């Protein structure tokens, strides 16, 4: 950060390589662990298929940029990209 100031310093707010950041990232987009019930269990409850799963999204990202989630880019102080943890059931009968 350049010399601090209470007011806008025009000199420091120009589009320049000073404010340029690398948008490169690699993120763990999805992880999922699922369990499909055995035929015995399914028959007992009258299901053709029953699967429960836990999954997650955007759990972490590798990036040189740390101020905010790098995928947001210029929109960085906006509503952040969400990391999500989920529990789901899929039932077919």
């Amino acid at each position, binding site marked *: 950060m350049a010399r601090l100031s209470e007011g806008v310093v025009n000199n420091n707010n120009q589009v320049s390589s000073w404010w340029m950041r690398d948008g490169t990232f690699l993120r763990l987009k999805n992880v999922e662990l699922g369990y499909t019930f055995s035929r015995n269990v399914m028959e007992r409850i009258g299901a053709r298929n029953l699967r429960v799963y836990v999954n997650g999204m955007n759990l972490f990202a590798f990036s040189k940029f740390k101020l905010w989630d790098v995928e947001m880019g210029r929109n960085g102080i906006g509503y952040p*990209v969400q990391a999500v943890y989920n529990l789901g059931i899929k039932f077919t009968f």
Partner: protein
Amino acid sequence: MKEKLKQGKACLVKVLLTSALVMLMFIQAFAQNDLVRFGGKVNGTDGPVSGVTVSLKTGRVLGITNENGDFSFEVDPTSTLVLRHMEYEETELRVADYKPNSAGIYSVVVTLKQNSEIEIEETVVTGFGQREKRSTVVGSITTVDPKELKGPTGNLTNMMAGRVAGMIAFQRSGEPGADNANFFIRGLGSFGTGKQDPLILIDNVESTSTDMARLQPDDIASFSVLRDANAAAMYGARGANGVVLITTKLGKEGKTNFDFRVENTLSTNARNFAFTDNITYMEMANEAYLTRPVDASSGQGLPYWQNKIDNTKAGRDPLLYPNNNWIDQLIKDYTLNQRYNLSVAGGGARARYYLAGTYNVDNGLIKMDGINNFNNNIKLKNYSVRSNVDINFTPSTVGIIRVYAQFDDYTGPIGYRENNGNWVNGGQATFNRAVWSNPVMFPAAYPSSYMPYMNHPLFGNALNRNGGLFVNPYAEMVRGYQEYNTSTVMPQIEIRQDLGAILPGLNLTGMAYVRRYAFFEISRRYNPFYYGANVNPEGGINIRVLNDGSLGSIGQVGTEYLDYNESEKRVSSMFYAHAIANYNRRFGKHAVGGTLIGLIQNQLNGNAGSLQMSLPARNIGLSGRMTYGFDDRYIAEFNFGYNGSERFAQDSRMGFFPSFGLSYNISNEDYFEPLSSTVTNLKLRATYGFSGNDQIGRADQRFYYMSEVNMNNIDRGASFGELGTYSRPGISIGRYANSAITWERSEQMNLGLDLSLLNGLDVNVDVYKQTRSNILTGRTFIPSTMGLLADIVANTNKLESRGLDLMMNYNKTLSTDWWVNWRSTLTFAQSKILIADEPAYKEASRYTAGHPAGQWFGYIAERLFVDDQEVMNSPVQFGTPGVDYLGGDIKYRDLNGDGIISDLDKVALGYPENPELIYGFGGSVGYKSFDFSVFFQGSARSSFFINAENISPFYLNGGNQNGLLQAIADSYWSEDNRDLYAFWLV
């Protein structure tokens, strides 16, 4: 347009009547006494086969088998029948070989042998929802298993990055209702104001990315992306940006199948910004004040007295010495969301249905105030109902009726419109204000116990150094709410008529839909009452209202009631119809195919705002395809789109977009035989062709070929008379007619390779080059001495893009217990501006031509100035050296050496803002009942620029005063620590 539609309808009726007549004639011809009734069932490898053409060996076609594989005809007992079907070998039946039953009726069961030359293989949905066998596809089409797009999100577009080869996708916001990812097929193919995103078709219905976002992967039957000109040529002037084709599921014959999915999700910020502690904030604010020349006339001293800092540090009365972390105070740690999806599918031989209903709740992370009787957090509820019914009206006629209705109900904090006209959503505004608000001058609100008789929240505030009130981000957040509702309803009817009875291999399809969209929005809010605090001599604090409208009241006067504001309502209607004639037949080693498509489209906008905008938007088109395959080895394809758009002058309204393609199935060659035990498929593809983009320019400038003249412009009027009281308006020109304006034209070349190995590895690689010409641009460098009143636009710009799409999948069942798969894609897309509307610069570095679309230009920062001495001895930058900028401010490179930092020193910086490289990889492994999968997604070759004013601490802008991010507190230039690269490399 109506005339044509009528003709089309009349045509269809004629065809149906004629075919009925022809059938009757057949029946007549055979109604002779010595004929016998010969019938039976035709089976294939998977049960009955419908649509088998039954004809006499002498050539006359009798008819086709019904959906149960049954047929029955009256024939001469000495005749021979021939059964023909694409996927099976031709089979002859001699009537004399069979014995009739006691009633003299022949009933036979025939099992057809599968055609050894055509394996039953997956089909690919191509242009206009046609299905093509994977092996005969020539164009560059990628498909994704819809299951792969199922993730823990209610937004389909969030799952596409890294999973669709050829798609550059990224997500800039996580706000419910505004979290659609941006996506481009093969990157940006154009630049300027025209449409750059792909054409999205859901069951052939032209859709928005939000329509697509709301789709449930469970309901999707196929997801294909048409990437090259050959695949998209049939879409003519709509296809240049690529096409995303999605079809939804149809019911299957059999027992009713209920599919129910319920998900419960915990959602949290992937990364929050970190503020520093407020002691540091105040100390650095004081430093900011002292480190620059003090404007003595302001008469203001240090922003924060040591007394306040000490008391804050000691944690004394937080109402008097506020110590806010606005993110903690405005934003919840997590939120819970629910999703439910139910589908019911089934049916019989005559009719099948697929019904689905969805209810999703997406909550935001915004906190609420208990004293309000409304919810200001974001809550987006979306629900949809889908009904896809297909009915066999006759053995050769299928009717499909699809009805889809989707609704969004949203409530959330109130957004605002920026000075430049951009709308900022309420959630985004809340996060913005968390950064833009002073953390130590006022508490969010005082406890209501301070004034128990008040019905409104006691929001905190204070005077800022400009004499106004601060923006209290908490008050802004809870002061009201905004609601919007959208409805999209799409009924659609499709009729497919198999005309195999007349000409084997011929079928007709007619489809029409109506899409109605409605949107309305209401917001309600009150003006917050603000209170300031001071020390009560008896201990504790007193609070005092600041804006009650009395003498000395500051700012907007508070209210206890909600006001009401309705914004624009958007309604639109689209009508679309197409008719397709399709012919596919094999003659020995020769496979020929042809498709002819006619379409009309009419779009109406209910609140267009002007006469020209209110006129219906129309497109008509004729598209076609011809294919020829020899021996399943060589396939040639010709596609065209012939489109008309009302946006262009009458005599140049129609555009012709041809494309050619060749593919070579090497794996079907005889000499390849020795390898076929390892390589099951090896195919080369090459295409070359054109497509277009008629969605050019701004939406409010539809008819470039017409002039727009304002006959009543008061600004150009004149006043008469002694007193000048009689005035007449003048004439001004809003647009000059330019009949030469035309669509963007895209010339594309694509080379592809498909490889499948027996061990389960599938690889597709495509490389391409696209040249987009005729890109519309404003002619910015026409001298004002020309005397033109309106801006001039022309189709001058040109962009080239090239890249690579790669997909590599591996599937393997290792044993009865174990299976594994691997999926990966890589999309590299790079563009280069060939022609841009630019003057002749002296400095070559200033041309945008030669750089990618979306390239940013700016100054090269060298480092920070060491001291004021260096400032005075360097080229002049922005403002007066030594006054407006000092040692410790950014030093730029004077590229042209003229001693002044100006526009002439700007150069292209970094990569373009949209990434040039998107990739994804991951795998799944299953063991018995368990399955586990991981998927990584990456992005590279993009640069972005931090908006300095957004995050530079202490900037006072109106009532906003920026907070201090930890990263800045950790690394900044100070007089004691002259770090010349502070924060640069953070």
